């Protein structure tokens, strides 16, 4: 059975984007995959809460796709969380409407993977930085999946490499839609990229 995937995309300067543009392009027009471009929809931050909640209800997998700005998301994602994940809808008494859905982040970072370690200049790991998102998902009774990360975007100019990332992202979205991944293992890897890599090995 096919699941329905909602990509909540946020990039305040998409016109300058190289990598997110390619990723987004790779998943455009897929069946049962809806791309929701938040900065295009709400340039005034005037979020239509009812509409956003309906979108969540209409989908099974929520992907937050955005560049990793200052160890977090662009501002509009935060505004979206604050307004859309209402008490009584997403959490609290009667707030079970999102229960059982899957959520994950798909992000691009400027620094390389090695920077996100104790020895690296960012000290914390990506998973540690993403804990607010992880806990938000848990609090709303959603299943938080490992993030899909494209590291080192500052030095990522190789066309072939870019195409590989785009293809991987497409496999991720298609796989989530078709529920092709074994997510029952007790310990999932830190990044979804690892799961994807192991799958290509199998194929």
């Amino acid at each position, binding site marked *: 059975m096919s699941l329905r995937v909602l990509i909540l995309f946020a990039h*305040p300067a998409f016109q300058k984007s190289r990598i997110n543009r390619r990723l987004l392009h790779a998943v455009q027009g897929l069946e049962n995959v809806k791309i929701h471009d938040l*900065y295009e*929809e709400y*340039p005034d931050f005037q979020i239509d809460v009812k509409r956003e909640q309906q979108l969540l209800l209409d989908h099974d997998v929520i992907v937050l796709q955005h560049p990793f700005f200052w160890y977090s998301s662009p501002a509009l994602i935060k505004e979206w969380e604050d307004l859309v994940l209402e008490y009584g809808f997403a959490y609290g008494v009667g707030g079970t409407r999102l229960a059982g859905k899957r959520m994950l982040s798909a992000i691009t970072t400027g620094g390389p993977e090695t920077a996100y370690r104790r020895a690296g200049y960012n000290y914390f790991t990506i998973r540690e930085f993403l804990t607010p998102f992880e806990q938000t998902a848990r609090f709303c009774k959603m299943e938080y999946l490992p993030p899909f990360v494209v590291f080192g975007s*500052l030095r990522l100019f190789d066309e072939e490499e870019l195409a590989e990332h785009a293809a991987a992202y497409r496999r991720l979205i298609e796989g989530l839609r078709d529920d092709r991944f074994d997510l029952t293992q007790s310990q999932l890897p830190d990044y979804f990229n690892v799961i994807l890599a192991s799958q290509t090995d199998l194929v």
Partner: protein
Amino acid sequence: MESEGLLFQAFIYLLAAVVTVPIAKQLGLGSVLGYLLAGVIVGPQVLRLVGRGEGGVMHVAEFGIVMMLFLVGLELRPNLLWGLRGPIVGSGGLQQVLTTIAIAAIAMLFRLPIQVGLAIGMIFSASSTAIVLQSLSERNLLVSKAGRTSFSVLLFQDISVIPILAILPLLAVSGAGVKTIDSGPPWQRALVILAVVLAIVAGGRFLIRPVFRYLASIQLQEIFTAAALLLVVGIALAMQKVGLSPALGTFLAGVVLAESEYRHELESDIEPFKGLLLGLFFISIGASIDLRLIAQLPLLFAGLVFGLIVVKFLILLVVGKLSKLERSQNFTFAFALAQGGEFAFVLISFAAQNQIFDQRLGNILVATVALSMVVAPFLFTINDNFVQPRFSSRLPERAPDEIDEKGNPVILAGFGRFGHIIGRVLNLQGIKTTVLDLDADQVDLVRRLGLKVFYGDASRLELLRSAGAERAKILVLAIDDEEKSMQIIETARKHFPNLTILARAKGRDHAYRLVREGVDHIFRETLGSSLDAADAALRLLGVRAYEARRIVNAFRKYDEEGVRELAQYSENPDELLTRARKRIETLEELFENERQRVRHADVGWDPPKPE
């Protein structure tokens, strides 16, 4: 050579118009008087450059009236015309009947036979459609109530020309006048008339529109113009053939075409011809005035013209009163229509042909009507400068409303297209607002919608005080009168320093004045929507919504700063000029600067550039 003569005549007429009309306009006399003066000057009694205005030129010139009525018809959708049927028959009929009877009675006092009296009455009862419509539209009064009523009366007069032409021969003293327009029995004539009217209506519906559609698809501008002229000329000819007024026929055609999609194109095609031909018509009238006759009998003419105007004026006042015109409107209406009209010239020559009166009396009548038309623009001037100001200075004829909304935090002055939006937003938030407006109709309308609006002039101290200005926090100035807005600011500053003023600015100059007054919250009335339009344009061209919004917001900030900067110099015209010139000089630089600033405004989202 024939054509040389024609060209020379055209040269004289055009020269006279080009020289005289602008001067008359500059003097505030209106273009009609300019044309009339031009006619007198080039006419047979002064420069003798053109003849008496009979014959060819006059014929062509009369066509201007035909075109004017076609254009008037184009402006009048059938349902609007139907809506005016009451005023047309009521006000128009009353005016004509009363004027005819009054003038006939006066004529009989001077021992003229009753038939002659009635003929003169009918001749004098018409007003000049050309002068009145031209003058009213120059003053933007066509849509006012006075304008509407004037138009109804004129329309009735135009229509009544037909029965009058039928009646006049019956008044012939000898009882054996010349044959009427058509020799057939009355029912046959009625049938012909009905058939022609139906033909015009049906033709306009089913024939003319497809033809114009085809011509428009060919995309030859001059052919379209030619077709428009052909239409008007053709209808005029057909009407003449069956003995109806060409003006009425083209008017009807205009009404039929008023709903068509080519209305505006027809309008702009015919408009210049109309203007020129009407000018020609007025010049001809000017040239046809028999100055010698007037010089011989100055007192007679003074008395005739004065009497004509006074009688018509008084009757018009009565008609206007019965038509429920408000007093200032009634005076405009009466001053507008008090002169004789161009149809009089047609009727006079027709009556003379029918030997109702002799040629000499005919000449006197022509000169009287022409003189009354010369005086007509002055009547408008008198109304503008001496009569109307009395009404506006006492404008609060209606006493300011008692205001029972004291203690509201917001006073909103002006509830027109700008103010009402502010009022609605505040109202939605449950913020109590005291609304003041000077437009009595607007106040009543908005009140009927259930909002609290009070009639009154916000520049008056007592009214502001009774509106609770002492306790209010905010005064929103949403009126569109610049001087008044500055006046209110002065009053409010002096007496109610507690008020924060939010001011609507009509344009840059007004904004400069507000900045100099130290008003902090200035809103140029079109800035917001222009920027919204720019934003939409950017987005339609593929710019991201969020970026477009940021570009537009950055521009707004930049432009507001510019206004505040230039405002410092705007009091000193020389300085402002140099500053403004400098800004123009650096405009290109400015645009480039702007581009740079916007482009680099959001570097935070740029990845750091690795060296």
